[in-house]
């Protein structure tokens, strides 16, 4: 595989991981505009553990994910008392605060960035992405996944059916943050350098946009969204700015005409029947 194609695959892998990090809370109706903040936590935590404390890379990245999850859990309980746009704004503010904190943390380089010693190859990145997809696909066959959709569709009825809405939302939010943290840790060790400025709110915004483009009704939507977002500039041979501009136009038109995204439950139902078995 050529270097160019490999690079593209790696980029796709990062976008896929980010997509699923956003997808979990979004499936439960929570717009997380601060996902970049959790990536930052994972990135810096993993790098620090590896650089300064000599942890093996895999362990450091896993721990980065766990730490991101811990932060999420800590803020989830107060934040998830809000909902709708308040929640979106709270996550946005959280992302900004986290990024700003790391930007000022001199122990990890502050604004000048943080070099990371250990390197992981493309195989590890792509492999993790595949693992995330498999994990999400498995998760989609559980009651947990069903309840995410239920909580989004009709929280009143879900509550009356006995579902613990708070638990589902916190779990989705935390798990999403863990995935984001792992993605951040991978990023740090692949590029061997982190700068907090990269993990800006616009990164969260772009991720949310392509997940919504793919569709959140099924587990394949985020994958499709990530693929489109990653491959579109390559297919159009356009500059980075044009890619974002065209992507934005795409999103606007989609939200107007087909807000449920590309892959809806109807389309996904066919895929699901191939993938699982139901009693006749």
């Amino acid at each position, binding site marked *: 595989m050529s270097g160019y194609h490999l690079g593209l695959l790696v980029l796709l892998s990062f976008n896929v991981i980010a997509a699923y990090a956003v997808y979990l809370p979004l499936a439960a109706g929570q717009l997380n505009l601060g996902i970049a903040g959790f990536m930052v936590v994972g990135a810096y935590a993993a790098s620090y553990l590896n650089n300064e404390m000599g942890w093996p890379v895999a362990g450091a990245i896993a721990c980065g994910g766990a730490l991101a999850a811990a932060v999420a859990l800590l803020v989830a309980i107060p934040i998830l008392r809000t909902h709708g746009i308040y929640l979106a704004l709270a996550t946005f503010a959280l992302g900004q605060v986290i990024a700003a904190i790391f930007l000022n943390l001199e122990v990890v380089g502050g604004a000048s960035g943080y070099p990371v010693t250990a390197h992981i190859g493309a195989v590890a990145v792509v492999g993790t992405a595949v693992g995330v997809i498999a994990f999400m696909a*498995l998760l*989609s*066959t*559980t*009651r*947990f996944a*069903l*309840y995410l*959709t*239920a909580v989004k*569709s*009709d929280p*009143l*009825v*879900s*509550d*009356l*059916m*006995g*579902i*613990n*809405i708070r638990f589902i939302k916190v779990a989705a939010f935390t798990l999403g943050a863990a995935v984001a943290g792992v993605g951040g840790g991978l990023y740090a060790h692949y590029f061997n350098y982190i700068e907090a400025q990269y993990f800006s709110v616009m990164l969260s915004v772009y991720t949310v946009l392509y997940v919504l483009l793919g569709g959140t*009704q099924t587990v394949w939507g985020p994958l499709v969204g990530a693929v489109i977002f990653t491959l579109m500039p390559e297919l159009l041979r356009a500059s980075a700015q044009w890619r974002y501009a065209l992507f934005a136009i795409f999103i606007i038109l989609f939200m107007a005409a087909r807000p449920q995204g590309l892959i809806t*439950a*109807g389309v996904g*139902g066919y895929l*699901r029947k191939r993938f*699982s*078995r*139901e*009693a006749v």
Partner: protein
Amino acid sequence: MGAPFLSVKGLSKSFGGLSVIRDLSFDVMKGTSTALIGPNGAGKTTVFNLVSGVYDVSAGSIALDGTDVTAMPSRKRIQAGIARSFQNIRLMQHLTVLDNLLVGQHVSASGLVDLLQPFRLIPNHRWIRDAMQELEECGLQKYAHERISSLPYGIRKRIDLVRATLAQSSLLMLDEPAAGLNATETEELKLHLDLLKSRGVTLLVIEHDMHFVSAICGHVVVLNFGEKIAEGSFAEVQTDAKVREAYLGTEDAA
């Protein structure tokens, strides 16, 4: 006679300054079917919302089988045995019939292992079998994989009922189960309710169709402007002066 299964005492509810339910008391005996009737706006659905926990009570108490559930969070009430259907159906539009029923099963599958089992990968899983069985008993199994949004009103109404029964709860509250159904569908509904009664389920039904009420329910509570104005058998209530006045011009008594 025995202790009442559902006991509502001095129930009151106000929204801001607006008093919607005033000092309401009635009992429902175990295994019986009671109808809650009254003109539109009498507060019947509000009573359901109070008993199921959607609203907090402003005053009064609600007891189920001797246990006081007044302060119990809504989420726990289905576990305590209170299930309900909805006046406007409230099935999840984008999900299939089967998925809606699976959600309705939650109370009997609420552990952590239940939550995380990849049950859709397991052929002929118990949950799916149970849901399909309920559908078969009503002759609705062919709709199992249809999305709710694609189904006609009558079918959706019955699926809402099936969902409510999946919890196998002891008290089933039905909000206008016959509304909008044609004659055949209403007969099928009556059969379904007879089946439930034979299983020992206690029914509390809001209805406007008096033929239906007299066929299904042995006991009737009449509400008007948030207060109980009469209670008794259908025949007793039918001839009550206050009830006739409340309904004057809006209903013919059966």
